C-alpha cells in the first residue's frame, strides 16, 4: 500500500461517543465539577421557569397575579454565564492533564478534528447529565416554593407537556452552553503539537 493511494483516517461519532463516555465515567472526579456547574445554573433556570408556570396557573384559578420579576431573570443569566466560565476552566485543566494522551493519539493517527470532536462530545455528555440533574432539582425546588405559598393543588395541575417542553429546552440550553464553553479548550487540544505534548512532563 502506498501513502498516496490510501489515506482514509476515520473517527466516527459512535467512536467519539464511546471514548468520550468512557472518559467521563473513568475520570468521574473531574467530570463531577463540570456536571455540578451545569447543574446549578440549570437548576436555577428551571426553578424560575417552573415558578412562572405555577404563577400563571394560580392566576387562572382566580388567585392573585404573581410573577417572576425581571431582575430574577437577570440573575439567571448571570448564573448561566458563571456556569459557562467554570466549565471552560475545568475543561482547560482537563486538556493540560491529558497533554500526553492527546500527543499520543496524534502519533497514532488522530487528526486535529478528531481531538476536537472527542472533547466536544465529552462536553455534550456532561451537559446532558448536568442538565437533567439540574432540571430535577428545579422541579423539586419550584414545587416546594410554590406549593408552600399557593397550595399544592395548584402545582399538581401542571400539564405534562409543559414539563416535557421545558426539559427539552433545558437540555438544549445546557448543551449549547457547554459546547460554547468547550470550544476554546477543545481547539487548544486539537492544535497541540504532538512533539511538544510528548515532551511534556506532568
Amino acid at each position, binding site marked *: 500500500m502506498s501513502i498516496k493511494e490510501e*489515506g482514509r*483516517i476515520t473517527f466516527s461519532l459512535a467512536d467519539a461517543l464511546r471514548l468520550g463516555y468512557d472518559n467521563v465515567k473513568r475520570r468521574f472526579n473531574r467530570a463531577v465539577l463540570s456536571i455540578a456547574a451545569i447543574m446549578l445554573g440549570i437548576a436555577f433556570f428551571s426553578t424560575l421557569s417552573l415558578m412562572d408556570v405555577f404563577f400563571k396557573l394560580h392566576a387562572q384559578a382566580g388567585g392573585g397575579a404573581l410573577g417572576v420579576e425581571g431582575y430574577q431573570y437577570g440573575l439567571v443569566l448571570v448564573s448561566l454565564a458563571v456556569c459557562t466560565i467554570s466549565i471552560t476552566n475545568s475543561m482547560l485543566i482537563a486538556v493540560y492533564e491529558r497533554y500526553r*494522551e492527546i500527543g*499520543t493519539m496524534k*502519533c497514532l*493517527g*488522530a487528526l486535529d478534528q*478528531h481531538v476536537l470532536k472527542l472533547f466536544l462530545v465529552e462536553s455534550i455528555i456532561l451537559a446532558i447529565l448536568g442538565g437533567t440533574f439540574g432540571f430535577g432539582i428545579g422541579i423539586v425546588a419550584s414545587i416546594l416554593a410554590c406549593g408552600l405559598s399557593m397550595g399544592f393543588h395548584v402545582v399538581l395541575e401542571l400539564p405534562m407537556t409543559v414539563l416535557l417542553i421545558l426539559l427539552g429546552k433545558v437540555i438544549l440550553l445546557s448543551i449549547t452552553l457547554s459546547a460554547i464553553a468547550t470550544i476554546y479548550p477543545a481547539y487548544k487540544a486539537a492544535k497541540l503539537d504532538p*512533539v511538544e505534548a510528548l515532551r511534556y512532563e506532568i
Partner: protein
Amino acid sequence: MRSDIIIKTIDLARYYELGGEIIKALDGVDLEVRRGEYLSIVGPSGVGKTTLFNMIGGLDRPTRGKVIIDDVDISQLDAYELAWLRCRKIGYIFQTFNLIPTLTALENVALPTIFAGLPRDEGRRKAEIILRSVGLGDRLDHKPSELSAGQQQRVAIARAMVNDPAIILADEPTGNLDFKTGREIINLLRELNRKRGVTIIAATHDLKMIGVSDRVVYMRDGRIERIEERKRE
C-alpha cells in the same frame, strides 16, 4: 517494484532557536534504511535521535533536507496523508510507554484500529490476538496502572503493531526498564522483526541493547558518525 530502501533521509537538518541561540538538533543526516532490517541508532541523549524519529514520523518539519518513505517525499503530504502514515505505516514505541491511563490493555491496543477505520469488533479481535502473541493474554482487561513496566511496554508494542505497519520507531524502548526486562523487550522486537518482516529502528544510549541489530548507526552532535554492519545472529 518496491525498492529495498524503505526510508531515506537526504541532508536532513532541524534547527531550534532557544533563548536566541540556534540549537542544531540534526545537522545533515543522510541515512538509508533497508526494508526488513533491525537498525539501532546509538548516541547519548540530546544527540538528535528523537528529532530524527519525529521527522521520519512526520510529526515535525525539517529545517533543511528531505525524508523519503517508500519513494514518497513526506513533505509533499497533507495533514490527512501524514495521519494515515502515522496510523498505518508507522508504529511508535516510547520510552515512557504513553498508554492511555483510562483505557484497558485491550482498548489501548484497539485504539489505532479505530483511526484506521476497522469495525469495532474486528479491531478488538485483532488487538486480542496481538496481545496474546506478546504474552499478555491474561492481562487484556487490566489498566496500565495495574501492569508492570515491562508489561506496559509490551502493550505499547502490541499497539504499535496492530495496524500491521511497515516500520516501527522505538525511541529508547528500554530506557525505563531494568536490564532483564529491557532484554526481553528487545528480543520481542527482534522476533517481530523476523516473523513479520517489519522494519525496526530503535534508538538507545545503552550499548547492551544493540546485540540484535543488523546495523548500528552511531550519532554525534546531530550527525551520523559511523555505521556498523553486523552479522545476523
